[in-house]
């Protein structure tokens, strides 16, 4: 199969409108004859489900949590971008497009990103109408803040809980459709496979996580809105349940995987405190506006931070990047923290942390002003670490935060499997090699509220309207495969727990495919993953049965998939002989130690095709054409 991105012809700013006009429509009376399956109820899934149901389609939604409202999107703190230009500070659709393309280090599609910037303005309108309580000014109009990678204030927010409020808005829209009977919501359900009939996605196999029952659900199209796969690294800012099972199983059914190695590592997270650690908590990026980052000049300096005199401290970001200082982009701040820790200058009991110091800010602005700005973050830090950041510097370290990679989709958000779509973080589409802050929420809602409702009809108009039966050999086979898989896991009865495997895998990924990667390390990592995978299938021990609520069984399936997906990430990282955005290959850097892209050879999306167990995946390249922007090397010195 050749990759067809279906990017419409014509000038960039007119592509989306022209395209919408050309798409086939389903007549209103016929919409109710189509059944749509939406897996995932985060921002992308909830907004898609509600909007499609409003149009008249019959929708079924699935999530593994006990309520759609608990999807991982709930945890997003900072805000959502939109090119409203309410500040009159020179923002525009084109500027948001440009910032996003540049921020992604020129590895995203122009047409998709422009569409994203275009519909961003409608998102805010929609959310406000739903009753989302965004922050406002005294005049009653919406407030904005600025965020990394942009010179304008275009970020809308609801205190530090923007994701929560946006998700509750989408969830309320879903609830209205549930009440109308247009959505049927399945909670505590996990999708375990996509079912293909005649090469088209026609349903899913799901497990009821309470009873353990394996169910069939048929439909005319399947949307995967299942979020990112960053938990392959184990210690991350993701919710514990976030996983890659849906996208990985779809991949094995023929959906190409786009840029799997593009991972975002956030520089300001609370560091690991011990072996028991189960997740990492993000400290908002905004702290870097006033906090100064430093480590001791000397290796192994174990004095308390207060006891280290000014001239024995290294404010390394300010030293290396005098013009951007502590505000360099996420990827650079993260990499430099790793470097100073690798040199043995890291702080705290593990040596894997750097200081984020507010002493100067408190001196300059006063404690009250600092408290007004960051009080809730300081409290959160204190609750977790037991230390008071007003008295002693915070300790921070980078952590995995987002996956830019995901299922390859065309301009209509359809994967390489007809009838199978991917929205939100689950697809690869809009952020290239690095995502700007406050752009994931925007993308999830753009996909769900505005893109998929327009593009899905085009496909449906070409498929038969009669109901899809789940009583077919294809469903039989898929159900059997899922059941066999579960039985196999339970039958091993080895000695190691799922948790142990997950942690080991996370270590391998972090060490070999983390903030800095190199050829030898990746090759070694691939071997280690293969070994661990073999061990997993020989020595995993899962308590309990499949006929009950069994959290270890759920996790084991997810870890089994991560053990395969992790290898593909390394293969992808190994093949991309350049550094770009979050993908830093040590061999490809400038003499000053900055990322060096290779635009002549790597200006493409790597879309990987599954070829069967134990077979190498096949690489397809979707060349990226830049018509509107000129590619330049980033510099923050």
């Amino acid at each position: 199969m050749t990759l067809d991105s279906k990017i419409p012809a014509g000038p960039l700013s007119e592509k989306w409108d022209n395209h919408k006009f050309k798409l086939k429509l389903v007549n209103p009376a016929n919409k109710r004859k189509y059944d749509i399956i939406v897996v995932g109820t985060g921002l992308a899934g909830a907004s898609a489900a509600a909007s499609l149901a409003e149009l008249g389609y019959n929708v079924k939604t699935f999530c593994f949590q006990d309520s759609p409202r608990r999807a991982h999107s709930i945890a997003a703190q900072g805000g959502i971008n939109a090119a409203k230009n309410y500040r009159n500070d020179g923002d525009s659709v084109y500027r948001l497009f440009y910032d996003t393309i540049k921020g992604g280090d020129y590895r995203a599609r122009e047409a998709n990103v422009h569409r994203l910037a275009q519909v961003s303005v409608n998102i805010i309108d929609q959310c406000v109408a739903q009753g989302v309580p965004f922050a406002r000014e005294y005049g009653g109009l919406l407030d904005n803040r600025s965020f990394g990678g942009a010179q304008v204030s275009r970020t809308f927010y609801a205190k530090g809980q923007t994701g929560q409020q946006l998700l509750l808005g989408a969830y309320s829209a879903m609830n209205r459709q549930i009440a109308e009977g247009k959505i049927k919501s399945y909670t505590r359900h996990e999708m375990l496979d996509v079912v293909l009939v005649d090469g088209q996605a026609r349903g899913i196999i799901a497990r009821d996580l309470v009873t353990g029952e394996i169910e069939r659900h048929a439909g005319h199209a399947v949307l995967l809105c299942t979020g990112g796969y960053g938990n392959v690294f184990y210690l991350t800012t993701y919710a514990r349940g976030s996983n890659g099972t849906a996208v990985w199983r779809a991949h094995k059914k023929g959906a190409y995987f786009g840029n799997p190695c593009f991972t975002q590592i956030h520089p300001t997270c609370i560091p690991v405190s011990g072996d028991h650690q189960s997740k990492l908590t993000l400290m908002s990026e905004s702290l870097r506006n006033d906090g100064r980052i430093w480590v001791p000049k000397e290796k192994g300096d174990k004095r308390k931070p207060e006891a280290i005199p000014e001239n024995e401290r290294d404010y390394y970001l300010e030293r290396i990047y005098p013009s951007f200082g502590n505000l360099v982009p996420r990827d650079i701040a993260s990499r430099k923290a790793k470097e100073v820790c690798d040199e043995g200058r890291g702080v705290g009991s593990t040596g894997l942390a750097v200081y984020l110091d507010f002493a100067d800010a408190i001196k300059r602005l006063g404690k009250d002003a600092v408290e007004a700005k960051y009080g809730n973050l300081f409290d959160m830090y204190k609750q977790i670490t037991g230390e008071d950041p007003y008295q002693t510097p915070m300790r921070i370290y980078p952590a995995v935060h987002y996956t830019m990679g995901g299922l390859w989709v065309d301009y209509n958000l359809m994967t390489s499997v007809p009838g199978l779509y991917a929205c939100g973080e689950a697809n690869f589409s809009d952020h290239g090699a690095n995502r700007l802050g406050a752009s994931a929420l925007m993308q999830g809602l753009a996909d769900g509220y505005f893109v998929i409702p327009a593009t899905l009809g085009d496909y449906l108009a070409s498929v038969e309207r009669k109901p899809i039966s789940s009583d077919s050999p294809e469903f039989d086979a898929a159900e059997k495969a899922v059941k066999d898989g579960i039985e196999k896991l339970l039958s091993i009865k080895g000695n190691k727990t799922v948790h142990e495997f997950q942690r080991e895998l996370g270590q391998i990924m972090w060490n070999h495919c983390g903030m800095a990667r190199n050829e030898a390390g990746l090759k070694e990592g691939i071997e280690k993953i293969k070994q661990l995978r073999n061990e997993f299938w020989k020595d995993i021990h899962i308590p309990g049965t499949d006929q009950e609520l069994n959290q270890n069984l759920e996790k084991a399936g997810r870890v089994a998939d991560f053990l395969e997906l992790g290898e593909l990430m390394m293969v992808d990282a190994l093949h991309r002989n350049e550094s770009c955005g979050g993908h830093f290959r040590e061999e490809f850097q400038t003499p000053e130690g900055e990322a060096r892209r290779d635009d002549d050879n790597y200006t493409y999306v790597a879309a990987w095709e599954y070829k069967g167990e134990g077979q190498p995946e096949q690489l397809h390249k979707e060349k990226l054409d830049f018509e509107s922007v000129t590619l330049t090397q980033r510099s923050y010195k």
Partner: protein
Amino acid sequence: MSSENMNLTLKVWRQRNGQSQGSFETYQAKSVSPDMSFLEMMDVVNEDLIKGGKDPIAFDHDCREGICGTCSMYINGRAHGPVKGVTACQLHMRSFIDGETITIEPWRATAFPVLKDLIVDRSAFDRIQQAGGFVSVNTGSVPDANAIPVAKACADEAFNSAACIGCGACVAACKNSSAMLFVSAKVSQYAMLPQGDVERKDRVIKMVSQMDEEGFGTCTNTEACEAECPKGISVTNIARLNREYLRAKLTE
């Protein structure tokens, strides 16, 4: 940062499923670091149980940073444990002392049946929201976001009510298992905003009626809910709900 590790005794509610009878089991949690979160301590205990050939304790959790509302444990007689304003996942072991016995139970309420061990079914909350917890606007058919100004005080107030994470601690804390704090927070959010004004009467009547149908108890103003709510949702929301309800009934 860490001082001495602790040894603790846990008394945990174990129940196979919704049909079976449950009972307390006692476990030892050894060498617990004060830096661990409560759920991390539970993870360690579970690893020991699995290694010892036993069934681990099932408990709900996801974000582990106090925002998703999934975790739900009744710890030493208090919803989400002893520290005010935090969820069980944000609770750290430094809030306990060496040698302590900790009792861990699920939320107890007729409307929240136990599914397994510490996991309960809170879908009643979803059904209350489905009854009317929304503004009836379709995607795309809305005015510009700044077309209707909203006084900052109203917007902030609406936000404070909207901060509810739907965890159900208020129900668990209440001797009547009333869901009034949860329902009133949602009703208040919309009542404070012009966007929610059009449907406010219909909304409050439908949500309250669904709440009653789900088997939650009546509110007798003990205010235990506010004391245990991890997000500081105020009982003034309940007063507002009562006003909204009365007004809606009078003009029905």
